[in-house]
């Protein structure tokens, strides 16, 4: 069953409001919400190597479905290439997977045909591995923490 786009937009608007202090503290640039295409982007910089990362979040059918989280190459504008993604050293598991995608139940791209065809989109918030990454703030904090943690961040993922 499709979620009314106005409902998804209202949820996203509220969840982005909850990110404002984090955005100020961590220098995130959050775009306006593109209601027609149900997309917004967040730009953040790794304080380790000053690499910029642009995260695009498509929120159609949110929160019945998880966000479609994608990275955009800041130099070429290409979406979903390895160059657009950060790499993990693997200390906390491979969150940034070479598919490439965020390999976590919070990321729709990780499901079929991604690396986790074994996960069910329906009831994604009840996936035993979801932890607390069930909202935009938690997902953005997890991404930022991983690109600013010297023991975890492996620089830009390269093809």
């Amino acid at each position, binding site marked *: 069953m499709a979620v009314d786009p106005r409902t998804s937009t209202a949820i996203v608007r509220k969840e982005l409001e909850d990110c404002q202090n984090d955005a100020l*503290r*961590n220098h995130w640039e959050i775009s306006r919400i593109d209601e027609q295409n149900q997309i917004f982007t967040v730009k953040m910089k790794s*304080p380790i190597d000053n690499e910029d990362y642009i995260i695009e979040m498509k929120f159609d059918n949110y929160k019945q479905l998880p966000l479609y989280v994608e990275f955009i190459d800041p130099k070429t504008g290409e979406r979903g290439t390895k160059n657009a993604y950060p790499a993990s050293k*693997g200390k*906390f*598991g*491979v*969150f940034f*997977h070479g598919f490439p995608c965020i*390999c*976590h*139940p*919070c990321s729709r791209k990780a499901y079929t045909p991604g*690396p*986790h065809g074994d996960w069910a989109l329906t009831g994604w918030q009840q996936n035993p*591995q*979801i*932890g*607390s*990454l069930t*909202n935009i*703030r*938690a997902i953005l*904090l*997890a991404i930022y*923490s*991983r690109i*600013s*943690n010297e*023991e*975890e961040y492996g620089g830009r993922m390269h093809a």
Partner: protein
Amino acid sequence: MSPDKDLTIDIETTRGKWEKATFSKTTKIQEVIQAVIQHFGFAPNGNYELRLERDPDHALKPERPLVSYGIKDGDTLIFTDLGAAVWL
């Protein structure tokens, strides 16, 4: 509570703020993380970290005690769930 031995801090999480949490100054960061997990009911098998709000670019090392970071009464720590390791 002993003012000489204890610290009273706030800990911010995505599940709310733990205000005026008191720990011994020698409490290790990992022990604070465990206390936050229990306080808010985060999954016990997750990956978590703490950062000082006034130094948000650096994760606190789990093995070090609070006092080694110069944490003072009234400081705020940011608790983050890094996401479970689903592909090791």
